């Protein structure tokens, strides 16, 4: 999952006032879990999930896990 620098730099966590940095984010769904490098607030850990990611890779992974 690639993120353009621009995409990351465009966003700020409102509560913490921090710019986003790449972090290792853990996901789980049904009986599966995995992780990915995603932009997140370095302070509170608020993760940025884009439309592309949610409707693309994540949706695919959900389908795969649902049918396991």
């Amino acid at each position, binding site marked *: 999952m690639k993120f353009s620098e621009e995409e990351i730099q*465009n966003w700020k966590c409102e509560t913490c006032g921090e710019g986003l940095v790449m972090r290792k984010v*853990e996901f789980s769904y049904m009986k599966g879990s995995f992780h990915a490098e995603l932009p997140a607030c370095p302070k509170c850990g*608020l*993760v940025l999930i884009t439309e592309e990611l949610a409707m693309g890779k994540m*949706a695919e992974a*959900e389908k795969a896990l649902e049918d*396991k």
Partner: protein
Amino acid sequence: MEKEQRIAWEAQCIQEEPPACSTTCPLHVDVRQFMKEMAEGDVNEAYKVLRKNLPFVGILGRICTHPCETKCRRGEVGGALAIGSLERFCVEHYGSPDRVKLLPRKSKTVAVVGGDVAGLVAAHDLRKKGYGVTLLEPGNHLGQSFRKFSEDLLPDSVIEEELGALKDMKVDVRFGATLDAAAFEALCTEFDAVFVDRTSSECASLPLEKDNDGLIGVDPITGGTSCPGVFAGGKEGEVPIMLAADGRKGALSIERFLQQAHMTIGRENDGPYETRLYTNLEGIAPLDRVRCADPDVGYTLGEAVQEATRCIQCECMECVKVCQYLAHYKKYPKKYIRQFFNNEKVLLGAAHSSNQTINSCTNCGLCAEVCPNDLHMGEVCLEGRHAMLQGNYMPPSAHEFALQDMEFSTSDEFVTCRHQPGTQQSAYLYFPSCQLSATAPAEVLESYRLLCENLSGGVGILLGCCGAPAYWSGREALFRETLKTLRQQWQAMGKPEVITACCTCQSVFSEHLPDIPIKPLWQVLENNALIDNACREKDAGKTIAVVDPCSSRYDPEIQNGVRRILGNLGFTLEELPLSGELAECCGYGGLVFNANPKLDNAIVTRRAGENERDYLAYCAMCRDKFVNVGKRTAHLIELLFPSVAGNDPWARGWISWSERRKNRRRVKDELLVNLGETVEHTVESYEKIVLHIDSELLRTLDSRRILESDLRQVVFHAEQTCKRLRHNQSGMFRANHKMGNTTFWVDYAPEDEGYRIHNAYCHRMNVTGVK
């Protein structure tokens, strides 16, 4: 799916039964495949097909009397395929036979007595299976019956060449054999089994019991004689292909005998038999048999190919032809059933594709209608869904949205049960349905008003859902619960006659609540002269296509009634390719719209293109789904109540899931107001949020099944907690909030009194940690 059930279902699908040509052929040549190869001009492959079933193929291919042609289905549309001539062409064209491949040698040995066709075939078949075979011929020629044909038809050289195969196969051929009782006795001791070819007159003297005709008596199924281990077949005067079948039968029996297998089980189809295959010849243009330019020469390659092309390639596939779902996964029911069974019992649900497949049937029942054996794949798939739920591998997202929608319709937000204003009892109970209330609330209210004004004895109203989504999704307990509630409500109202405006409700009631009398609204309106036939004056003469909902399939009365009403209103009607008892589903059925949106869309898009006229539906979901793909479609109720404000049946556009809920609430609220009850809603704070969404985005979000209330909750949550991202340049916010199993993301910015929504999306995966 239990094994017995699987077997019973599988037996209903006869797609794998061989075509009539093959079952009429005494040796069951795969004529259909042969024709396919020939049509492709592949004579070599065609020859291989023949060789598989025909021993001495160069001989039988030339002289077979082709009984198969009498049953060829092409005969009903043109003329039977020239199967005999094509086989001749094929073997002549191919030339010398190939070596016969033998199975590894077995220790058991068989004696074949008499070397006419039956004996030759028995010897050939048994040797091919690996048994040692000794062929004893009293005369000094093999294949007497083959030698009666003219040199033109069957050259001697071909006979020699083809029978030469026996030598290659190492069949021990002994000419001039003595066949007396003593010799026979010796054979029976020396060999493990014996086959007697009754065509040869010398065999008559063998010490075996005779039948009325003086022939060695045989069991009709096995060819077994009075002596165990001795089998016989063949009969003077029979055509070679029947003699060959006798030899084959004897060889099969001997194999079973030597393997100590059951002698008679599964032998119904040994010789010619009636096939169970169904082939619909409708729409097949008649084609006459291709004549050979020179009858003395026979077919040329070109002519042979052309003739073979006439083969219909008989098969059933009736259901697959009409069901887009069955066609989509490229199988036919027998295969699906096997696949589902394996998925459930062997793979325990791990086969992704099966789960999807089972959830993609609309349960419409069209397959059962066209199937010669009434196989209903909807029932198979429903059973599959039950198993998935029981085994805990039902994909949770498959039906979630639809069930949430049903939950709304069975909640206080919609459910209402009241007598007619000012009365204390109900002779009738109007059940307009949750979906019609969702799409045509004003017409529902107006129709109720009309019923109240005109029917005597009181017309109560019941708002709710019949539970179809629970049924389709396999949630049996929920379905039963819903039915129970309906029954209680009906009882509390004094068991009135129910009037419904939805075919699905009608069929659910008829099937699952059979003691509740129910009638379609349209019938009640018509019977009580409550339809103003002039109300559509300005549309008079308009030609429309009627869309029968799949749930009306078994209700010709509704279907005809609707057509009559439309005719009286002045419309000219056109029929879709499939209607009436062959009505198709719009994709809502079986909740396919939820479980497989892509297929659902493909189905409704195809159906929208089937007639260029505006459509007229009398199912709320049909109306909404056709409109959703851009097809101008009106609902019958809209035609009947033109006085309703904003009523413009064909111009009304698509409707969002949020709006559908709003409309249901509206029906309830207005009813209660009419009853003089105070309407109270507890309004959550988030519900007060004003949203601005442009219409295109609204459609996108609707297709993502994101409701306006979801958007409000995310915005509300973000505004409360300030947990959100802020875009540096635009100042737009991006926030998420998890509700139920879904995390919603919303891009928004304050605007006027409320918020402008820029985008929204969702996922079901959970973030469990950030490192």
